[in-house]
């Protein structure tokens, strides 16, 4: 087992952590290219080399709730190569690329698919697949069934689950060699984010007029001059990372009130079962029937302090009344939960940005998947409370940076040890 780099797990840990401590890890990894802005072909990923790992290329990020799998499908297969390609490899490729659902719970996010990317000199397509971490057992069985064990000697994985399931991988897939736990050095995530951004010019966007339903729209954001910026990764929990320049970043904060809290509370309060269900419920709900607003207390705006009347003063503040509990719907409760968690993340992110004197805040993580309500709330909160000085940015591949990072680093790692 080789673990290197800073072992902070995105979206999971509450603890502040300074990644500078992990220079050792970078040296061990032997990667000196810390300027993430270099186009993929020139940055060392693209060079043809004898040490290029054998196909298939995967990257995995096993989070507390969701597992993310990124698969590189080569599109430049020469006829010669096709002839020598193992049948198992073809089957795997066919299975992954022809389906968009795997079993009951696995999904391929086809809208995120990235075509025509070049990795390690190979041109191809990146596929983005996710399944609940609770299905890890089934996933491993499926992988075994598809013959992975015969092909793959190393799995490059990150996220807290990479530790937890290491033994399961070994046993189920009968791997003789290493399981690489690239335990989510934030570096990979940052690098990967910029890699994707470079390859996909429309990756980064913001919400214009987030509070006005009709005028609200997504707009692309030119992130070619990125530094400094803040990454807020919202998974089960939340991690906040400040990136000051190439290779210069630290984990500055986090909170345990994250996507897991939203879904957990929603399941308890509404009886729903999935994130999608919870988001659907929230979309149809009204949190002002659950929360106590400034105007509920002061009769209007609290002018002395410039607090608008429709601001939430106390999340769930009305729910101590039996009568009011009887009147709210599941939808209202789901919405209130979503607003509570989102606002809290927003306020922590905003203060982190102020403390670090950083103006751009990039929100990523699977909490934002199919969740425009939260994105708009965050966009509005950043803008409103900073009087326009802070900008909330979002990325199309919000939840997959850890996994792509693994896919890319996989190579670098093997370099240094071969």
């Amino acid at each position, binding site marked *: 087992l080789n673990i290197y780099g800073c072992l902070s797990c995105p979206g999971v840990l509450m603890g502040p952590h300074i990644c500078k401590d992990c220079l050792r890890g970078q040296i061990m990894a032997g990667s000196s290219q810390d300027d993430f802005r270099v186009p993929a072909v020139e940055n060392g990923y693209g060079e043809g080399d004898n040490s290029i790992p054998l196909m298939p290329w995967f990257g995995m990020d096993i989070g507390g709730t969701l597992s993310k799998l990124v698969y590189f499908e080569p599109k430049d297969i020469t006829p010669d190569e096709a002839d020598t390609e193992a049948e198992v490899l073809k089957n795997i490729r066919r299975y992954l690329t022809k389906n968009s659902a795997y079993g009951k719970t696995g999904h391929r996010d086809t809208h995120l698919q990235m075509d025509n990317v070049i990795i390690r000199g190979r041109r191809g397509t990146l596929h983005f697949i996710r399944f609940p971490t609770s299905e890890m057992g089934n996933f491993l069985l499926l992988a075994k069934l598809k013959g992975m064990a015969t092909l793959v000697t190393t799995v490059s994985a990150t996220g807290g689950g990479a530790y937890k399931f290491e033994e399961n991988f070994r046993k189920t897939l009968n791997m003789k060699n290493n399981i690489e736990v690239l335990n989510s050095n934030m570096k990979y995530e940052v690098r990967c984010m910029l890699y994707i951004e470079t390859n996909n010019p429309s990756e980064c966007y913001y919400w214009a007029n987030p509070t006005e339903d009709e005028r609200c729209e997504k707009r692309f954001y030119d992130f070619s001059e990125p530094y400094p910026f803040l990454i807020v990764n919202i998974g089960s929990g939340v991690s906040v990372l400040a990136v000051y320049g190439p290779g210069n970043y630290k984990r500055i904060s986090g909170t345990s009130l994250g996507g897991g809290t939203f879904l957990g509370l929603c399941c308890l309060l509404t009886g729903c079962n999935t994130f999608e269900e919870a988001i659907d419920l929230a979309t149809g709900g009204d949190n002002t029937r659950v929360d106590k607003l400034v105007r509920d207390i002061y009769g209007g705006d609290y002018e002395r302090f410039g607090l608008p009347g429709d601001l939430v003063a106390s*999340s769930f503040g009305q729910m101590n009344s039996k009568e009011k509990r009887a009147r709210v719907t599941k939808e209202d409760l789901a919405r209130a939960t979503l607003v509570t968690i989102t606002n809290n993340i927003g306020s922590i992110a905003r203060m982190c940005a102020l403390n670090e004197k950083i103006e751009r805040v990039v929100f990523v993580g699977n909490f934002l998947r199919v969740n425009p309500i939260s994105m708009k709330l965050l966009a509005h909160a950043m803008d409103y409370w900073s009087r326009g000085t802070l900008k909330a940015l979002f990325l199309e591949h919000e939840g997959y940076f850890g996994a792509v990072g693994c896919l890319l680093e996989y190579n670098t790692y093997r370099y240094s040890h071969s």
Partner: protein
Amino acid sequence: MDTKSHPKSIKLPDTVEVFGNLKNAKRFAIDIGGSLTKIAYYSTVSHRRVFYEAEKENGKSPSSEEDNLVYEVSEGARLHFIKFETKYIESCLDFVRVNLVNTREKMLGKVIKATGGGAYKYTELLQQKLGLSVDKEDEMSCLIKGCNFLLKNISDEAFMFQRHGNPEYKFQNADPNIFPYLLVNIGSGVSIMKCDSYERIGGTATGGGTFWGLGSLLTKAKGFDELLELAEKGDHRNVDMLVRDIYGGDYKTLGLPGDLIASSFGKAMHNHKDHTQFSEADLARSLLFTISNDVGQVASLYAMMHKLNKVYFGGYFLRNHPLSMHTVSFSINYWSKGQVQALFLRHEGYLGAIGAFLKGAEEYDADKYSWLENYAGSSGLRSPIPTQVLSEQGVPVDQLEIDRWESAVTYCPLLLDPANYVPDTVDLTQDTEAREYWLQLFEEILDKFAVRAIQSQPHSDTAKERAQKFKEKSISRLHYLKHQPFAFDPYLVQKQMDNDKALGLLAKRLEYLDGLEWCTRQETLISSVLAGNMFDWGAREVADLMENTDFGFNEARSKIQARPWLVDGLDEWIDRLKGPPHKCAAIFIDNSGMDFVLGILPFARELLQRGTKVILCANSAPALNDVTYLELVVILKQAATVCQIIHESLNKGTLLAMETAQGGPSLDLSRLNLDLAKAMSSHEVDLLVLEGMGRALHTNLLAKFTCECLKLAVIKNRWLATRLGGDTFSVLCKYERPNEVKGGESLKLKICPVPCTKETTKIHI
């Protein structure tokens, strides 16, 4: 010396009057919160100070004169605060209205200051019930005003909390320099204010209302307190996703323990059809942690943003609830990496009411006076939920009384480092061993005190009952007699007898002393002060002797330790006396009788003869057999008839009697009578004499001064003597020059064996 115990053990006996002194109420303020309402009012109370009788009618024994005692009646100000659940507001207002009969007319047309969310809702009710017009005050500014007032005035108001720590509660002294700080008010929502200016810098909607609201949805608990009780019993690990749930164990590389919460409520999200698998207690605890952690984190972010290192918490959420305070403290410490300190307030629930009251009472000039908590009339530390019952209505209430000191107080001008001055030598809040010993002793000595009290008022039918009540109350809060002007002085008669006896011996004693050779005389004068200091009704060991034997001055001299003393600075002192005389000496005196008359007076007389002015500093209010200022004046007058030097010095103004504004056996030089402090400056005091265990040992032993200081005491307590490395009646004679640390360090080490164990613990950590 303050004494604290675990707050849970404090319970107020039923005999305490609720809505005390309502008939004299002058002005009202009210803070109506969502769940609790606080009424504040101001009243005047008559303090009786007994005049010491200089001339007695012949033939009457002192004990029969109780009825003829002359009292000085002074009008004192008292602030009353009553807290009850908002749902009882009507009954409580009715109670106030009925009991205001005397002053109702006067109240008509006046204003009641109201604050809190309910101020709007109940405006009409207030007007209708009390006939007062309602003046609404901004909630936040009331909170800040109230907080400032408490921090400046109430000793031990703020404390740090460390669960299972020793001590669990670390109290902070009252301090005029409180700014800047962050005030985090956790009500339904959370408001965060920066206090040096008055500025709301932020807040969060995740607060007490969220805990209550979500808790009501997730459990069947009725009300906030049931939720807290549930949380006490629960285990959040069944609900929260922990680091170990994700990593499979501790995350050692990052130094993260496996039980750290990674995602609050994270375990509740995995396709559970059946929610009953989560116990309500577990959910409540998880919720409590979620909110407390979050508030702590947000508060520490704001504190760091504004570069403040002190955060005080107010509002109804915490209620001095240990688990919540622990979580908030932990969170603040964690996120600020120890840079920010979480502090809690004993009277957090009263901030708004105090502030509202002060807003309407600017003419009373609260800032100008010093205020003291009247422990006798206040509920204890942990009283989030009103526990007393308003008699007829059956409404549970909780109360706080704060008295105004009659004189302004300030720091002693001779303190070397006033900002860091801590009077107490051993902090009972931190030294468990010492605390247990003293609390036990106080309880025992209360019996004696009560007996004396009854004897001092033989004609009073209620004396016995009152003494009994006093005893109960005192024991119940284990709070020693430090506080407060009781309307009578139980030792008055005893003191009078002792003084008369001693004055009878004075002339002979002075003659004897004058006959001694200079050097021997100086030595004898100091040892006489020490022998006199044996006469202390507050010391159990001596009280027994005095009660059971014919204990005289010579017996006392034979009891005390032979030289060299435990701390022996006598030779240095005598060397000093060979030099030029001091300009002025301030002597803080201790006991009546032998102590003052045969010990201190001859010593002071010697100084006067050297050309040194002498200010004798006595307590303002009685405590045991300590000399009070009023007595001092009389004794000096009597002594002047015996001694010409004293007579002349009094006339010339070179011998002064002044009061300290203290009312206990110890001496807190940060609360010294302003006039005395001024006199010390204007007379250029260059010698400070602190006499007795309370003034020189329990307090001020480690205090450093800008002038010379002589600390004299006999250690009359076996436990303490042993702890200091001596026997009972060991002698402390410590002579210090400014910028000189003599013997203090080694003594300090001996005094506190506890820090040594603390150090050991530190190493283990």
